[in-house]
C-alpha cells in the first residue's frame, strides 16, 4: 500500500489535485482511497468526492496531526485489512503540521507501506501574506515535503510563481518543485511523479 500525504494551507488547492489524481489511479486499475480531514462540523470535500464516486473516508471535527491521529491510523489499518487498497491519498486539513501526521505512521500495524510521500501544496497567490502571518505552519508544511506543488499557476503572475519557488527552495533545498494549474486535468508528468509505481 502506497501513501501520499497532501498538506498545504487552507484553500491552497489540495482537493483540486487529489480528485484528478485519485481518478487517474482508479482509471489505471488501482484500488485507491482518499482520507480527507477537514476543519468544520460538516465536511465539504468528502461530499464533493462522493458526488464524483470516489472512495472517500472522512475525518472531521479535529485534526489528524493531533486529536485525530489515532483515527488516521485506524482508518489506514481498515483500508489495508478490509479493502486491500493499493493507494491511500491523505488530504490533511489546512491547519495540519505534516511532521505530526508522519509521526503517527509508526503506529500503523498493517502491511508495510510500500512508499510514503509528503506533498506540500503552495498557493502562490497568498504565499507572501501567509509566510508573514503563519510562518511556523507554512514553513513546516514546506520543510517536510519531498515534493512541493506550486498550485494555481494559471491564475498567478510570473512574479508570484517565482516568489513561491524561491521561498520553497529556501525553506527546503532538496524537494522537487513543480507547477500545477488550478483548473483542468493534471498533466501526465505530474501524475507519473506522484504515482511512479503504477506503470
Amino acid at each position, binding site marked *: 500500500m502506497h501513501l501520499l500525504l497532501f498538506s498545504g494551507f487552507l484553500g491552497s488547492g489540495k482537493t483540486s489535485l487529489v480528485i484528478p489524481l485519485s481518478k487517474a489511479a482508479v482509471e489505471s486499475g488501482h484500488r485507491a482511497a482518499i482520507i480527507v480531514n477537514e476543519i468544520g462540523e460538516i465536511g465539504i470535500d468528502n*461530499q464533493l468526492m462522493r*458526488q464524483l464516486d470516489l472512495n472517500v473516508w472522512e475525518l472531521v471535527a479535529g485534526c489528524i496531526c493531533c486529536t485525530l491521529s489515532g483515527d488516521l491510523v485506524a482508518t489506514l489499518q481498515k483500508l489495508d485489512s478490509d479493502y486491500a487498497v493499493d493507494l491511500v491519498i491523505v488530504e490533511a486539513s489546512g491547519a495540519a503540521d505534516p511532521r505530526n501526521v508522519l509521526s503517527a505512521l509508526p503506529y500503523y500495524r498493517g502491511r508495510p507501506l510500500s512508499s510514503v510521500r509528503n506533498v506540500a501544496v503552495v498557493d502562490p497567490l497568498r504565499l507572501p501574506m501567509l509566510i508573514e502571518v503563519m510562518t511556523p505552519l507554512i514553513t*513546516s508544511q514546506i520543510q517536510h515535503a519531498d515534493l512541493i506543488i506550486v498550485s494555481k499557476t494559471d491564475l498567478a503572475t510570473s512574479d508570484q510563481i517565482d516568489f513561491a519557488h524561491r521561498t520553497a527552495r529556501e525553506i527546503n533545498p532538496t524537494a522537487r518543485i513543480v507547477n500545477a494549474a488550478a483548473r483542468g486535468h493534471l498533466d501526465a508528468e505530474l501524475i507519473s511523479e506522484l504515482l511512479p509505481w503504477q506503470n
Partner: protein
Amino acid sequence: MAELILEPYTVKQRWRLFGDVGEWENLVSEFMQTLARRCHETGKGIIGHIKALALFPDGGYLRVSVVSPTLPAGVEGSVPVGCTELLLTFNVIVYGLGRDTLEQLTYETADHLTKKWKEVTIEVL
C-alpha cells in the same frame, strides 16, 4: 509550533429562486465573496477558506471556493437547466474571528443579499 486556533462556522441552507435574477454560479459566488469581504473588514480577519458545495435536487453540483476578499471565487461543477432550488453547505474558516462572529456575518450577508436580489430566499436548515 504555536497552535493555529480556528473556530469554523458550518451551516446548511436551502436557496429558492422565484425569478430571473441571474445564474446560480454568480449568486453563490457573490454570496461567498460578500461574506469574505465582511469577514476581512471585521477585525482584520484573515480568510482561511470559505468553501461551499451546492447540491441540486435534479442532480449536479457547484463547488465554490473563496480564499481572499480580493480574489474571484473559484467555481466548479454544473447546474441542471431550469433548477430553482439548491441545498448549500458551507464552511467559513477565518483566522482571527470566532464562530459567533462568523455566524452573525453569515446571517447579515444572507439578509443583505436577499433584500438586494428580492427573488431569492435563503432558509437556514
